[in-house]
């Protein structure tokens, strides 16, 4: 199989415009005869469904929650990037493109990233027109904040609920089309397989999660917008139901899976508190605009903090190690996530961790100086001369509250500690997956008519995603890219007519879904689904997590294989197949994670370099930074399924950089 990225000819900045001008379109009357299935209603799927329906296609949209508004995009906190240059700080399409390529450690495709930067400004315009209430300043204009890995302020936000507001925007656009009958919405439905007819994606098999019924749905094209697979680690910042099933099932039906090992471990999350914990909670990167990260400089202080004998605020300034500011003076607390996460791990591995859990893993994120700074500024603005320390503190806290109030509340609910009074404790956690289904410039997978958008694809973030770029990508794909590129493909389908669900391919896919469900339900096992999921998570975190070694990865592959065998023998799924059965839902998802995990480790083993979120201990510089190998590894790893996950065949898409020079990423 030869991978063709279908990147158009011509200069980078003209590619997308020229391409749009030359692709085939479907006339409005014909669009009425064409059906498109969109699986997922997050930012990517929601925006795509709405736009495709506006264009005139008949859309069938699916999500596993009870409403499209609950897709996990809702949880995104910090913001969305766009090259608007409203702050006049020198931002431009090129700069956003460059930052994203560099942030991704030169492992993404130039043309895709440039297009993303190019449409970013439209996203903000579109969302504002929909009524998305972004934060504004007193002049009534849109406000911005900064995110990691960049030197401009280009992040638009709605307090700590940016994802919610953007998703509700897309949801409202969907609602308008649902009301018109252009979108048929299938809530509480889970896609369990894709149906490929004569080499083309022509439908899906879905389970109605309320009745248990297995349904066949046909269409002229299928779009996967099912989000990321971070839950392969069990504990992550993803929603409990986030899963890889749709992506994995299409992989098994011929879609290549790209860069599975590129995972983002986010530096600022609430640390693990115990073995019964079900998920981890993110504290948005936006907090690093104002929070300073540190650990005690002395081992004995760290120990005393862990034992509850010493408080952060009682540690003197000179006894604190603001290790990010120390190691990376030019970016300081705003280094990219991969860099910040490894630095936290490094300090904790050396014994400076401040949290009393099994592994002592945790560092401080401190707002005391920000509270002072804002307090003084406010006093000045309000004309208060000689403000008292209390006045400054209270004014400063108000500003911090207005910026991050909901995050502080969330922290307090989880930990029972008040972050306005005492430094937060945070630690890295699995957050986002840059890898995903391989797609070409059109966002089409290697199966014709099958598309993947949003976090489910691999396309734009290389080996590390910059903060506030996932929301941008999801909406770019759904509002502005896919609706064009899919037309080019569908223009050949105007005379096809309805696709019948009686075709043998539908029967075969349905039978395979049913057989897996039967096996799970009838297995007289001894352990719950979570038992296996937690074990998989531990293997992944310890051996395929923040730092990886040849030895560890080889072990992980063997351990996952063994665990998968045990799962199929010993898993216990209560209830029946023809009812609402949440354990059955989980079992299917974990079965797929158990396969993905193995490919993930294989991919990490194969990539003999460190880049972005992928850190191999064998490949680092003298001062412990990641060491990339551009000569041998400037390619996308795209895996073809052959039966055993780790025996997949590797296809390489060479990455060609014509517009940026490959450099060692430095944030010093």
């Amino acid at each position: 199989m030869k991978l063709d990225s279908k990147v158009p000819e011509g200069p980078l900045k003209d590619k997308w415009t020229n391409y749009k001008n030359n692709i085939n379109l479907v006339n409005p009357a014909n669009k009425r005869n064409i059906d498109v299935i969109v699986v997922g209603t997050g930012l990517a799927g929601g925006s795509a469904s709405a736009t495709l329906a506006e264009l005139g296609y008949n859309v069938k949209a699916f999500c596993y929650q009870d409403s499209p508004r609950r897709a996990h995009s809702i949880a995104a906190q910090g913001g969305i990037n766009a090259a608007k240059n409203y702050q006049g700080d020198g931002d431009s399409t090129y700069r956003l493109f460059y930052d994203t390529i560099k942030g991704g450690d030169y492992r993404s495709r130039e043309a895709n990233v440039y297009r993303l930067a190019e449409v970013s400004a439209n996203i903000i315009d579109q969302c504002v027109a929909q009524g998305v209430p972004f934060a504004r300043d007193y002049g009534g204009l849109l406000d911005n904040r900064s995110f990691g890995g960049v030197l401009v302020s280009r992040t638009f936000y709605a307090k700590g609920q940016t994802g919610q507001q953007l998703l509700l925007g897309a949801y409202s656009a969907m609602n308008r089309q649902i009301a018109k009958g252009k979108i048929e919405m299938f809530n509480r439905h889970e896609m369990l397989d894709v149906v490929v007819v004569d080499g083309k994606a022509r439908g899906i098999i879905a389970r109605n999660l309320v009745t248990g019924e297995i349904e066949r749905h046909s269409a002229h094209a299928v779009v996967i917008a099912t989000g990321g697979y971070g839950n392969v680690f069990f504990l992550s910042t993803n929603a409990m139901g986030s899963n890889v099933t749709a992506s994995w099932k299409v992989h098994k039906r011929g879609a290549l899976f790209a860069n599975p090992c590129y995972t983002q471990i986010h530096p600022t999350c609430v640390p693990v508190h115990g073995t019964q914990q079900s998920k981890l909670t993110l504290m948005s990167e936006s907090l690093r605009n104002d929070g300073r990260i540190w650990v005690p400089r002395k081992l004995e202080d760290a120990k005393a903090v862990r034992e509850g004998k010493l408080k952060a605020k009682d540690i003197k300034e000179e006894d604190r190690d603001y290790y990010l500011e120390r190691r990376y003076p030019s970016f300081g607390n705003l280094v990219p996530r991969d860099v910040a996460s490894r630095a936290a791990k490094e300090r904790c591995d050396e014994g400076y961790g401040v949290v009393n859990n099994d592994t002592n893993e945790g560092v401080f994120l401190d707002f005391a100086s920000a509270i002072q700074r804002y307090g003084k500024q406010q006093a000045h603005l309000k004309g208060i001369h000689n403000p008292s320390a209390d006045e400054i503190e209270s004014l400063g806290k108000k500003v911090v509250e207005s910026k991050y109030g909901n995050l502080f509340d969330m922290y307090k609910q989880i930990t029972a500690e008040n972050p306005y009074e005492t430094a937060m404790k945070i630690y890295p956690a699995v957050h986002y997956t840059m890898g995903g289904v391989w797609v070409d410039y059109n966002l089409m997978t290697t199966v014709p008519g099958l598309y993947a958008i949003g976090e489910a694809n691999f396309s734009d973030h290389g080996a590390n995603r910059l903060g506030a770029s996932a929301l941008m990508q999801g909406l770019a794909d759904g509002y502005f890219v896919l609706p064009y590129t899919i037309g080019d493909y569908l223009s050949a389908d105007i005379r096809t007519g309805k696709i019948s669900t009686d075709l043998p391919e539908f029967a075969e896919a349905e039978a395979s879904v049913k057989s897996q469900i039967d096996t799970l339900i009838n297995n007289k096992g001894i352990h719950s689904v979570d038992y296996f999921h937690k074990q998989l998570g531990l293997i992944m975190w310890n051996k395929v997590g923040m730092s990886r070694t040849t030895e560890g990865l080889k072990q992980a592959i063997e351990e996952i294989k063994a665990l998968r065998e045990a799962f199929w023998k010993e898993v216990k799924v209560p209830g029946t197949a023809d009812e609402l059965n949440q354990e059955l839902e989980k079992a299917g998802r974990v079965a797929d994670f158990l396969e993905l995990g193995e490919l993930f480790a294989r991919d990490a083993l194969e990539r003999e370099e460190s880049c972005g979120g992928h850190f191999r201990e064998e490949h680092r510089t003298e001062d412990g930074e990641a060491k990339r190998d551009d000569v041998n590894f400037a390619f996308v790893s795209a895996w073809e399924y052959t039966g055993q996950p780790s025996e997949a065949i590797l296809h390489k898409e060479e990455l060609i950089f014509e517009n940026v020079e490959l450099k060692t990423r430095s944030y010093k």
Partner: protein
Amino acid sequence: MATEKGINITLKVWRQKNGQAKGALETYELKDVSPDNSFLEMMDILNDQIIMKDGSPVAFDHDCREGICGSCSMYINGEPHGPGRLVTTCQLHMREFKDGETIYVEPFRAKAFPIIKDLIVDRSALDRIQHAGGYISVNTSGNTQDANAIPIEKENADKAFDAATCIGCGACVAACKNASASLFMSAKISQYALLPQGQVEAKNRVLAMVKQAEEEGFGPCSNTGACEVECPKGISLENIARMNREYLSASLLTK
């Protein structure tokens, strides 16, 4: 992250096999539950025990477990989302409960929210209210005017945002003796009424959404304010007042 001693609790949980079946409270005992566990983690532990004893685990809606997706919907000790203000069920922690306490866990109840199974109810009526008018009619085009073309007074922008933070969980309905969806509806109506973009369709929107709510079987608002108290996002009653004004002027104008 203090590790305190575990507590013992008795749970009375609503069990109902499906929409047609009759339901009842069942009693479960849980020992040594860590106060650091979230309420839903406690439910996970309960379910693990039930599964190991070959029982049928308690079905409940949940997803993000950080208070934003609006999936979780339990009526705990007589309150939607349980004790405490401004929290969803998933953010509730066991440290809010005492050793030896009996905890009642029921579904959100309302005529418009039929029970699907155990603690899971069907809230699609809320979606249908949004279909009726919860949007601004603008196509995706890439040619919309520049986002900064219309400045919006910060105060209005902030209020619109506050209204827009509704998570659509339905606690307001469950808290209301009339099972009214007014707070839910008014949040969307206010958000758009406060923004210039939303004004063009304001009249039709409020009329259509209110009509749909009636058809779904949600009751009228009698201003007791229970919804505001139980709303995990602190959506203010002011929004209902604004909706009523919008409704009144829209009805007068269309007469």
